[in-house]
């Protein structure tokens, strides 16, 4: 079945857990880019040095799934890539766009429609020019994806990573 329509909202919505806020990747852009097109992505920020210093989350919808009805590997890889660059960059105190050089993904377990998926990064090492991180995606206590990422740290300011911002609570419809 062909589906040219943009992804529609699941009747249940995203229903993010407390403290998660939607990321607005497309401020000032007329058309949604990939991060918005694939579905609502949320972030929660915790205290520095804690496990929850940077957590990305999303609700699994049908338009993120494969023909077998499970969360598509492409969606997992996309979110892991973002967690490596944005989360890893946050843990390392970097505020610029970090282009990915290499990623390795191990598909540990499936996820299904309705699951709330969270992604966390562990900073392995930041050199002057490279950022090494490990990433896990989880559903509850279950790990579904293990990834490792190497990002390039551009010299100078690079591209400021300020295009994306959190939707303000008071700006929600």
């Amino acid at each position, binding site marked *: 079945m062909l589906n*040219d329509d943009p992804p529609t909202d699941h009747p249940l919505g995203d229903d993010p857990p407390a403290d998660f806020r939607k990321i607005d990747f497309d401020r000032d852009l007329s058309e949604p880019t*990939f991060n918005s*097109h694939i579905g609502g992505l949320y972030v929660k920020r915790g205290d520095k040095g804690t496990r929850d210093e940077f957590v990305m989350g999303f609700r699994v919808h049908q*338009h993120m*799934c*494969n023909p077998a009805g499970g969360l598509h590997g492409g969606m997992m890889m996309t979110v892991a890539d973002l967690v490596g660059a944005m989360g890893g960059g946050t843990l390392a105190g970097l505020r610029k*766009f970090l282009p*990915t050089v290499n*990623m390795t993904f*191990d598909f540990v377990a499936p996820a299904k429609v309705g699951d709330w998926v969270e992604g966390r990064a562990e900073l392995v090492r930041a050199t002057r020019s490279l950022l090494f991180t490990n990433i896990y995606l989880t559903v509850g206590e279950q790990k579904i994806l293990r990834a490792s990422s190497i990002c390039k740290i551009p010299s100078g300011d690079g591209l400021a990573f300020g295009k994306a911002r959190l939707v303000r609570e008071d700006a929600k419809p």
Partner: protein
Amino acid sequence: MSIPPARVPDGFRRLTEASGFAASNGPWFEKIEDGRAIRGFLPGPQHANALGIVHGGMLAAFLDSAMGTAVWHTLKRRAVTLRLTIDYLGPGRIGDWLQAEGEVVGHDEHVVQVRGRLYGRRHDVLAGLGAFSLLSRHRQL
């Protein structure tokens, strides 16, 4: 989203059986040449990242699909991805046709090793190496 047919190279057929993630991020195309399956897509604004080039996640998803298809065309067995490692070699640009293909380099009764490549007209974009787990011959998706 419609794509002018002239933008799609000769011999590619639109994959109409896509659903879910692949349909939302398509259309994807395929052509069989000398027994190899080659997949292609035309990146649009919905595939872009903050830099205005094709998102690494989209590229990874597309290469993964082409590598999984290579398993099907070579062994006539369905498989799911166990592990994928990807080197990002160059940018994919919006509006420039991209292609991806996989090559089975080894397998036993459970696991297949596949080398993959995603490229534009003039440059390589991704190099991939993956391990895929073979599904039972009788399993229905």
